[in-house]
C-alpha cells in the first residue's frame, strides 16, 4: 500500500473507537508484520468504524481519517470520500447533541411546516425519517461515551419537546414511539399477521406464533422446493422494481462462482415509505427467518441486513433477534441442525437515499462510497464483493414466508398511507384495491380537508390528481396507467398545501441525494431545482414555456442517460405535477 498521510494524528479515544470495530492495532514493526490481504479484507468494516467514530467522538477528524487509512491500507482521500458521502457522518466538528427534524413531503402534509418555522436554525432539517404515520418526526442523537449516547426517533414531536432536547432534557425511550398498525385486530391479515399483534421478543414466542415453520419445511424439502413455491406465488419484489423473486433466487443458486450472498435491503428511504420499518420493528424474527430461507434457496452462507440509520428501534430489535436466533441454533454454523450454515450481519446505513439502490448498497457494505454500479453485470452474477448475490426488500421476504406457509399467489401488498387522512399507517390490502378504497380504509380525509393530490410511490413516484382515485393498485394496472406503485407510498395532500412547495421539496431531495457520480443526474437535479425555483417565483428565464421546455429536456436526459434509478426517476413527480399545472 502506498499511503500518503497528512500528519494529523488520531486521539486515544478515536483509536479506541476504531479498535472496537477493527480489533486491536497490530504491531507495525519488529520482526514480523502481518498486513496485506488481512488488512485490505477489513475494508468492509470502514462504515462501521466511521459509525464508531461518529457515535463516540461526534465527527470524523482528519487524524481519524489518517488512522483508518493506515489500519486499512487505503488512501486517506478514499476514507474521507466515504465519510463525507453520508448525511449522518460529520467531517467537521459539531455539537455532541444533534436533532434532525423531518421536513419532507409527508410530514409537511401532516403539518410539520409550522414546527419547522418555530425551530429555525437550531435543528438540522432532514429528508423523510420514515415516521410519516405519526406526523412531525425527529431523530435525536448525542455522541460520547456509551453511557451518554442518545439515538432515538421521536414522533409525533412538538417544538417544545425539541427545545427541551436541545436544552438537555432526555428524549423518550426508544420503544415509546412504537404503535401497532391501524389494522391490528382485523381478520385476514397475512403480511401484517404478527406485526399487528404484540411484539415478539423470544424465539419460543415466535415459534408459538407459527414462526420457523417455513424455514423447517424449506430445510426438509430443499432449495428447489422453495424456488417452486415462490414461483407459484408469482411473487415480485416489493422494493419498487417488481422483479420476479423466484427468478432472482434461482439465478443465484445456479451461479457457479462461490460464495453467494443473501442481502436484505432494509434501507427504506423513499419519501413517505415506512412499511419496512413496521415489519423490522414488529416482526424482526420473520425478516430474519425469511433471510435464512433466501440464503438456503440461493446457496449462501452469509447474509447481510442493511438497515437505514434513521431506524434505531428497528436496529435494536433486529440485533436482539439475531442474537436470540443464534443462541437457539437458527443462525450460525448449523441452522436447525447440521447441513446448512448461515449467519446474518446487521449493517447500518449512514443517511443516504441512494444506498437503497442495490448496487450502491453493496458498495456501502464494502466500505466504499454508496455509488451505484453499471448494470450489467447484475447482482445475481456479480453483486456484493463481486459475488452472486440475492438482494431482497423486507416486505418481499415477509411475503416469501406467507407464500411458503399457505401457498397460492401473493395477492396482498402493503401501502404506507400518510398525510391528511384520519388514520395514517401501514395497510395491507388485496392487489387491485382502488386508491379511493385505500384512502377510505385510512378513514378518508381529515374533517374539513379536500383532496388536492396523492404522491404515489414516493419522491420517485408520481403526483396523482383526484380524478384518478379509481386507479386499481396492482402492478399491472399501475403500469398500464403509466404509473408505478413503487415502494407503496401513498401521501395524501389536501388543498391547504402549496403544491409548488411539494414539488420543490422533491426537487431538492433529488439534488441532495444525487450521488454525483454520473453527469445527467448530478447536473440535471441541480438544473431542475433551479428552473423550478425561477418558475414558481415568477421570474422565469425567458418565458414560462421556455422553462417548461427546459425542464422537460432535463427530465428526458436524466431519464435516458442516468445509470441508476435515482436519476431515471428524479423528474417523474415534477413532470407529473407540471403537467397538472400546465
Amino acid at each position: 500500500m502506498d499511503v500518503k498521510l497528512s500528519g494529523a494524528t488520531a486521539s486515544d479515544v478515536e483509536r479506541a473507537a476504531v479498535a472496537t470495530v477493527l480489533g486491536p492495532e497490530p504491531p507495525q514493526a519488529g520482526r514480523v508484520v502481518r498486513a496485506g490481504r488481512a488488512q485490505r479484507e477489513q475494508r468492509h468494516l470502514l462504515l462501521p468504524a466511521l459509525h464508531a467514530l461518529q457515535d463516540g467522538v461526534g465527527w470524523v477528524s482528519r487524524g481519524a481519517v489518517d488512522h483508518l487509512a493506515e489500519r486499512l491500507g487505503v488512501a486517506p482521500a478514499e476514507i474521507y470520500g466515504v465519510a463525507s458521502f453520508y448525511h449522518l457522518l460529520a467531517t467537521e466538528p459539531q455539537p455532541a447533541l444533534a436533532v434532525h427534524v423531518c421536513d419532507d413531503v409527508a410530514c409537511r402534509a401532516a403539518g410539520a411546516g409550522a414546527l419547522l418555522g418555530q425551530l429555525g436554525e437550531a435543528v438540522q432539517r432532514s429528508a423523510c425519517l420514515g415516521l410519516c404515520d405519526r406526523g412531525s418526526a425527529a431523530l435525536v442523537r448525542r455522541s460520547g461515551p456509551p453511557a451518554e449516547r442518545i439515538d432515538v426517533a421521536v414522533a409525533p414531536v412538538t417544538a417544545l419537546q425539541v427545545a427541551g432536547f436541545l436544552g438537555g432534557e432526555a428524549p423518550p425511550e426508544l420503544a415509546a414511539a412504537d404503535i401497532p398498525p391501524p389494522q391490528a385486530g382485523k381478520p385476514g391479515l397475512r403480511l401484517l399477521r404478527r406485526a399487528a399483534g404484540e411484539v415478539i421478543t423470544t424465539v419460543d414466542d415466535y415459534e408459538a406464533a407459527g414462526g420457523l415453520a417455513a424455514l423447517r419445511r424449506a430445510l426438509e424439502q430443499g432449495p428447489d422446493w422453495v424456488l417452486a413455491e415462490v414461483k407459484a406465488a408469482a411473487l415480485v419484489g416489493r422494493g419498487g422494481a417488481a422483479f420476479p423473486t423466484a427468478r432472482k433466487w434461482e439465478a443465484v443458486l445456479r451461479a457457479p462462482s462461490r460464495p453467494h450472498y443473501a442481502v436484505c435491503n432494509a434501507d427504506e428511504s423513499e419519501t413517505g415509505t415506512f412499511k419496512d420499518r413496521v415489519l423490522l420493528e414488529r416482526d424482526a424474527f420473520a425478516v430474519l427467518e425469511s433471510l435464512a430461507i433466501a440464503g438456503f434457496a440461493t446457496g449462501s452462507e452469509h447474509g447481510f441486513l442493511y438497515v437505514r440509520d434513521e431506524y434505531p428501534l428497528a436496529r435494536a430489535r433486529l440485533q436482539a433477534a439475531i442474537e436470540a436466533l443464534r443462541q437457539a441454533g437458527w443462525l450460525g454454523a448449523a441452522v436447525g441442525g447440521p447441513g446448512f450454515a448461515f449467519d446474518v450481519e446487521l449493517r447500518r446505513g449512514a443517511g443516504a437515499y441512494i444506498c437503497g439502490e442495490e448496487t450502491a448498497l453493496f458498495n456501502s457494505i464494502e466500505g466504499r462510497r454508496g455509488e451505484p454500479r453499471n448494470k450489467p453485470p447484475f447482482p445475481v452474477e456479480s453483486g456484493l464483493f463481486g459475488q452472486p448475490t440475492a438482494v431482497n426488500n423486507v416486505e418481499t421476504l415477509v411475503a416469501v414466508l406467507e407464500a411458503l406457509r399457505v401457498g397460492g399467489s401473493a395477492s396482498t401488498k402493503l401501502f404506507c398511507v400518510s398525510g391528511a387522512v384520519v388514520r395514517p399507517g401501514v395497510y395491507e390490502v388485496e392487489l387491485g384495491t382502488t386508491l379511493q378504497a385505500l384512502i377510505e380504509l385510512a378513514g378518508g380525509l381529515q374533517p374539513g380537508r379536500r383532496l388536492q393530490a396523492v404522491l404515489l410511490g414516493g419522491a420517485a413516484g408520481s403526483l396523482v390528481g383526484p380524478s384518478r382515485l379509481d386507479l386499481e393498485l396492482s402492478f399491472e394496472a399501475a403500469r398500464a396507467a403509466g404509473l408505478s406503485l413503487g415502494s407503496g407510498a401513498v401521501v395524501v395532500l389536501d388543498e391547504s398545501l402549496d403544491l409548488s412547495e411539494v414539488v420543490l421539496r422533491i426537487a431538492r431531495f433529488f439534488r441532495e441525494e444525487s450521488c454525483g457520480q454520473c453527469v445527467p443526474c448530478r447536473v440535471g437535479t441541480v438544473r431542475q431545482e433551479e428552473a423550478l425555483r425561477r418558475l414558481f417565483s415568477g421570474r422565469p428565464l425567458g418565458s414560462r414555456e421556455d422553462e417548461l421546455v427546459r425542464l422537460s429536456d432535463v427530465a428526458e436526459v436524466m431519464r435516458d442517460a442516468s445509470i441508476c434509478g435515482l436519476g431515471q426517476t428524479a423528474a417523474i413527480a415534477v413532470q407529473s405535477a407540471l403537467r397538472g399545472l400546465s
Partner: protein
Amino acid sequence: MFGAGGGTSSYREIETAELIVLWGSNARETHPIFFHHVLKGVRNGARLIVIDPRRTSSARWADLWLGLEVGSDIALANGIAHEIIHAGLAREDFVRRATAGFDDYRRCVEAYPAERAEQLTGIPAGVIREVALAYARAARAQICWTLGITEHHNAVDNVLALINLALLTGHVGREGSGLNPLRGQNNVQGGGDMGAIPNRLPGFQDVEDVELRAPFEAAWDCVIPPRRGLHLSQMFDAMERGELTSLYVVGENPAESEADQHRALRLLGGLQHLVVQDIFLTRTCQLADVVLPATASWCEGEGTVTNSERRVQRVRKAVEPPPGARDDLEIVAQLAGRLGRPWGYGSAEKVWAELRGLSPMHRGMTYPRLEALDGIQWPCPSEDHPGTPTLHTRLWAEPRGGPPAPFSEVEHEPPVDELTPDFPIRLTTGRRLDSFNTGVQSSRYASPLRRGESIDLHPEDATRLGVAEGDRVRVVSRRGALEAPVRLDPGLRPGLAFMTLHFPDEVPTNVLTIDAYDPKSGTAEFKATAIRVEPLAEPATT
C-alpha cells in the same frame, strides 16, 4: 542458474502465482514497473511475502513481512528447507528425476532447525515454519530477489540457497513457478548476455571452454585469451597492486558507486590512463584523461535491450543526438580501427546478425521477428521457434533434458564488517523510488518525493542518541566518516540504520561501506556496514 544467467519466468507468470516471495528486494521502489506485475498477482489472489531487514514500502503491501537480521539469508533459507523436509513436503519425484546432490544438501540443512534459524535470523521459528509450508504447498510460487541478496560478501551462496528451495519443492521449470533475479537497469540482462562479464562470451558461453571459443576465434580471426578476465572488484585490487594501469570505463560511475569510496578515488586517480565513455560528465569523467561523449542508447541509437524476463526488444532511434556525441557502436568500432582491427560494422543490425551466428540462444531472433513478436524471450534457437517464456522446462520433461540441476551446500556466514561496541549499529544501503543510483541520471530532475540524503534511524535509537528528526549527526565506519541529517523510520528496528547512495555530492555514503566482496561474483557487501552515530554538539554551519 543451472548454466543460464537469467530469470526463469515471464512477468505474466508473476500475475498468476499463488505465492510471491520478494527476498531482499524493495521492488515497489526499485523495480516499480515489475512491481505492477506483482500487484496484479496480489489482486488476482496471490499471497505476498516480503523478506527484508527493513519494513519497506514493498513490505507494506505484503501479507507477511519477515524482518530478518542483515546477512542471515542463508540461515533463513536453510531453516525453511529444514522445515519443508521435516514436514514431508519435499517434492520427491522432482528431486529424484531432475536434481543432483540432494543427500549432501539434506545433511547440510539438517543443522538448521527452525529454532537455530530463529537465533541466526531473528525470525520466530513458528513463522519460519509457516513460510516453509506456504512455499512448499503453493501450486505456483515465485521467488524474486535483488541486491539484498547479491550485495553481500557471499552473494553467490545467497542465490544458491534460494535456488535450493526451488529445487526442493519443484518450483522451477514450470509455468507459474520460478526464480527471478530482478535487474536494476533495462539492459543489465542484455549486457551479460552479450558477454560484458569477465567469464562469458556472447550468448552466455564459457570463455574457458575451448570448443565454445573456437567459433568466435574463427569469426573474428583472432586468438581469444583463454582465461576469464577480472571483475570490477578484482580490477580495483589489481590497481592497488599496480598491475592494472589503464582503464576504459563505458557508462559506469565507479568513482561514486564503488564501496569504500576513499579507496576507489585514490586508485582511479592513480591510474596512468583513464578513458571514460558516458552521456553525462560524471565524477569518474572528471578524473579521466579522455572523455568520449556518447549518445543515449534508448532514444538516439539503434539496437536491442534484454529485460529481466529475458525478452530481447528492439530500440529505435527517435531523436538526433546533440552535436559531438557519438553512438557507442561507432566509438568502439573506430577505436578498433585505430588499434589496427577495422571491424566494418555498418549498423547495429549487422552486429546483431553476427551475434545470431555465434549465439545459439539468439539464433532465431531476426530483427523482423523481434518487431513482429514484440520481442522474443531467449533461448530462441531457430527462426520457427517462438521463444521461451518459462526456462528449464527440460527438468520436467520425460525423459529429463540435459544434466540434472545441482543442489548446493551453503552455510550461514555473518557479514564481514562485525558489530562491536565501537561500531554497534548495522547500516544497510539501498535506493529510493525517486532517484537512480548515484543520481547521474535522476538528480537533474526535480521530484516531489525527493528529500535528500539522510541517515534513517529507528526512533528508539534516536532517543538513545539524543537526536531528533532533522538533526545532523556524524556517521563513522571503520573506513570513513560523514555527516548527514537524521530521519526517523519506524519501519527499521533498533540497531538498524539505512542510507542511499543517491546524493554522493552531499553525503558520500560509500566512504562508509566495505569493499569486501564475493570472490565468485565480485559484488561488494554494500548491504552490511558496521557504524556508530555521533550527535553533533552544535548544528552544522553549512
